């Protein structure tokens, strides 16, 4: 077999990375290559999606694996030792070159590098760090770098990764320890959380130092994130939301990503054959938003789940919560507090802000609210305005059916 070309390796190692949901390139420090530092690249706070794949996901980073060889044997993972996939391996230099070629043509915001575990966890981690070092030190690269760290690696190496990278992530993989034990026999929940704790401490320390010394080194300015696989084990949405909230609180995570378990070629017989509905992943992201921007506690999101502990698939979690707690509605949009308004299905953070601003100038009527929202039909049963009161609408038994999007419509407007 001849040596693989770059394009062959790229095909294999990008394909292997497609199961990872995290991709964002936002929230890091602002940087520019104009002026004294020189080099190439910038970050402006907001990440840019440079393309969209037909799966609707944005492409903002070159997302590849350094190698898909792996000494571990996690059942959900396409790269596990016992899988029959084609294998390939990049050198750090090759990945750095590829990143720069793409970056110069404005295809990407930077690099998201992860890897199968080769030789040892430390060896693998060294290779990841080396790639970032080449970019940062040899090319003065100011674009975005996200490194997926290997929890079993020496904490010193993980720390080094944070000095080069904008974001580091450590995957918790599965929502429950039992799931992890069963599906990832080589991994250890304690070790994963230990690594997260280490990163959290480094981030906090770097922030403190930055306040005191202007030139203190930056450490993962875009924070740390993690990913959980949904649907590979029997964890319910309530389990998952609970786990996510413990992770946010315990490790100061910037983001928890959910990745619907996707059928992978050469899957282990232990896994389900079918993917969970993608909408489930979507509902989890919505619940994540509720916690991060709408002031819902994890326990409240859990209240929105059905008896089986899963969020309804036909309606969003905010509506599900409101339907369960109808007693709290209707709310008077001309009087209710911001916190209350944020609970109205169909009112986003922006709409609430606009309502609060506008009502200082006028008493809002239903028409005014309609101008500020996407769908007044969804909002109407839950609010009162100067000229509108839903009467018994909130009590109707078929309210859910009335508000749930119709299936045929979805079909019609999709694609």
């Amino acid at each position: 077999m001849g040596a693989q070309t770059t394009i062959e390796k790229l095909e294999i190692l990008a394909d292997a990375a497609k199961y990872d949901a995290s991709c964002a390139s936002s929230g890091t420090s602002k940087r520019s290559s104009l002026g004294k530092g020189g080099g190439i690249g910038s970050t402006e706070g907001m990440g840019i999606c440079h393309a969209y794949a037909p799966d609707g996901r944005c492409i903002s980073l070159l997302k590849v694996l350094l190698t898909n060889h792996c000494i571990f044997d996690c059942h959900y993972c396409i790269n596990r030792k016992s899988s029959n996939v084609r294998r390939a391996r990049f050198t750090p230099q090759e990945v750095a070159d590829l990143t720069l070629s793409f970056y110069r043509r404005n295809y990407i915001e930077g690099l998201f590098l992860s890897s199968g575990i080769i030789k040892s966890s430390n060896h693998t981690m060294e290779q990841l760090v080396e790639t970032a070092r080449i970019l940062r030190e040899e090319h003065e690269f100011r674009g975005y770098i996200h490194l997926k760290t290997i929890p079993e690696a020496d904490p010193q190496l993980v720390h080094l990764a944070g000095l080069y990278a904008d974001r580091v992530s450590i995957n918790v993989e599965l929502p429950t320890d039992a799931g992890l034990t069963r599906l990832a026999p080589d991994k250890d929940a304690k070790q994963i959380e230990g690594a997260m704790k280490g990163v959290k401490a480094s981030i906090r320390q770097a922030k403190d130092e930055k306040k005191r010394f202007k030139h203190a080194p930056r450490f993962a300015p875009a924070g740390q994130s993690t990913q959980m696989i949904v649907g590979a084990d029997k964890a319910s949405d309530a389990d998952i939301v609970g786990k996510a909230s413990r992770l946010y609180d315990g490790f100061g995570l910037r983001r928890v990503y959910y990745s619907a378990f996707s059928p992978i070629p050469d899957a282990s017989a232990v896994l389900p054959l079918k993917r969970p509905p993608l909408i489930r992943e979507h509902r989890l992201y919505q619940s994540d938003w509720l916690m991060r921007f709408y002031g819902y506690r994890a326990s409240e999101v859990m209240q929105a789940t059905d008896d089986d502990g899963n969020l309804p698939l036909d309606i969003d979690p905010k509506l599900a919560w409101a339907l369960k707690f109808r007693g709290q509605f209707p709310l008077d949009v001309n009087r209710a507090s911001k916190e209350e308004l944020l609970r109205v299905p169909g009112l986003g953070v922006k709409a609430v802000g606009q309502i609060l601003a506008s009502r200082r100038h006028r008493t809002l009527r239903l028409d005014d609210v309609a101008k500020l929202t996407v769908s007044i039909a969804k909002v109407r049963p839950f609010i009162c305005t100067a000229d509108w009161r839903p009467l018994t609408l909130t009590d109707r038994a078929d309210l859910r059916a009335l508000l749930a999007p119709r299936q045929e419509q979805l079909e019609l407007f999709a694609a």
Partner: protein
Amino acid sequence: MASAQPADQTHYAVKLDAPDDFAAWRDAARVLVQAGIAPDRVSWTEPGGSDDLFAEGARALPQPPANAPTPRVNKRFLSLAKNAALHSDPRRFALLYRLLWRLQQNPRMMEDKADDDVRRLTELDKSVRRDSHKMHAFVRFREVEDAAGEAHYVAWFEPDHHIVRANAGFFMRRFANMKWSILTPRGSLHWDGETMREGPPAQRGDAPEGDPVEDLWRKYYASIFNPARLKVGAMLSEMPKKYWKNLPEASLIPELVAGAQTREAQMVDAGGQNFAERPDTLAAIDKAIHSCRNCPIGEMANEAVMGEGPQDAALMIVGEQPGDQEDRLGRPFVGPAGQLLDRHMELAGIARSTAYVTNAVKHFKFAQRGKRRIHQSPTAKEIDTCRWWMESERAIVKPKLVLALGASAARAMLGKTVSITKARGEPIPLDDGSELWITAHPSYLLRLDGDARLKQEKLFDADLAAVQERLQELIP
């Protein structure tokens, strides 16, 4: 110039030199407000604008009274206006002036989000921001060699609004150490690593055709896409078709979308059991079935029960599934049905210790009634799913004869449901040259009484005797 109070009804036509010249608009607007010229007395034109023809009126700006106060501007208005002025809507400058005018009367007007003018301004701002954002995202440079033999990166982009100049800074900050040009129908930008130069509008043909790195990029684009998650609508809303012609990767989209279903089916197939390698030892199967959750029975949190017997047994006996006792002890056929089977095998002269005994389904399916776990038959689908494990055992043991006990076992062997009454007592040839015999399940016998039981036991004995006879022939 003096005089008449109700007075001056002059119409003013202000001509801007460039469509994105916000500063000129601001200067003129300030004077007009100070001079008290109401919005309906001013028209604004830009070069090439269609309003040019109709905009009539005084070209010279009025002279505001010396003591006229500086117009009030709201910070938020200013930042929105600056951006909205880049919109290609010819009425934008008039809107900005109307807002500025109204702002003098009501300084807090910008807070009224339901006001039509405020909303329109917000909309303009939004679409300009979107256009800028798309420019940051969708400019694709192609590398060419310049006269000095150095790399020069050239892009072609078609913005909707007058945003090119406003976005020069972004590209300078990002590609500081490169030489690059961005060509657009609304003007061009040229950066040589040190200075920025603006150029005239360009045409698509002025930009280079391709770049070898595009093949790599396209390969990346195709590989990172997960066909199991096709969401074309989501893609289109962020990357509308009008941009596709200038994106090298977009040419792949139709085939990626068209092929997605097949690719997903392949992934699912490949992810199915047929593809994964069968475990090659009985011990490995034993380990694997304990964590198997391929069917819902596995979720009932039982122990799986592995077959047992000599690995080179000529006879393989397949039952339905472990029962309560089997599940507790982790061994097949140890409960009442197993004991019954033992007795009849002895009668037929078959030593149980020479047979490999296993089940079609590896986990115990039951319904909880208080403390008792009541046996439930597996569904056809569950049998078909679990069949894979029994097949794996068979591939290792390689029996000459398989005896299936009952309908579930028969289904596991044949992949279809057969009637025991019709199928019993006759060998059914199997693909690998071995043969299958089918008889009733001993637990069926246990449920009968009296004559019926006697009759069935006789049939069962006859079947076992035939099997024993056949085995003698098969074993040399």
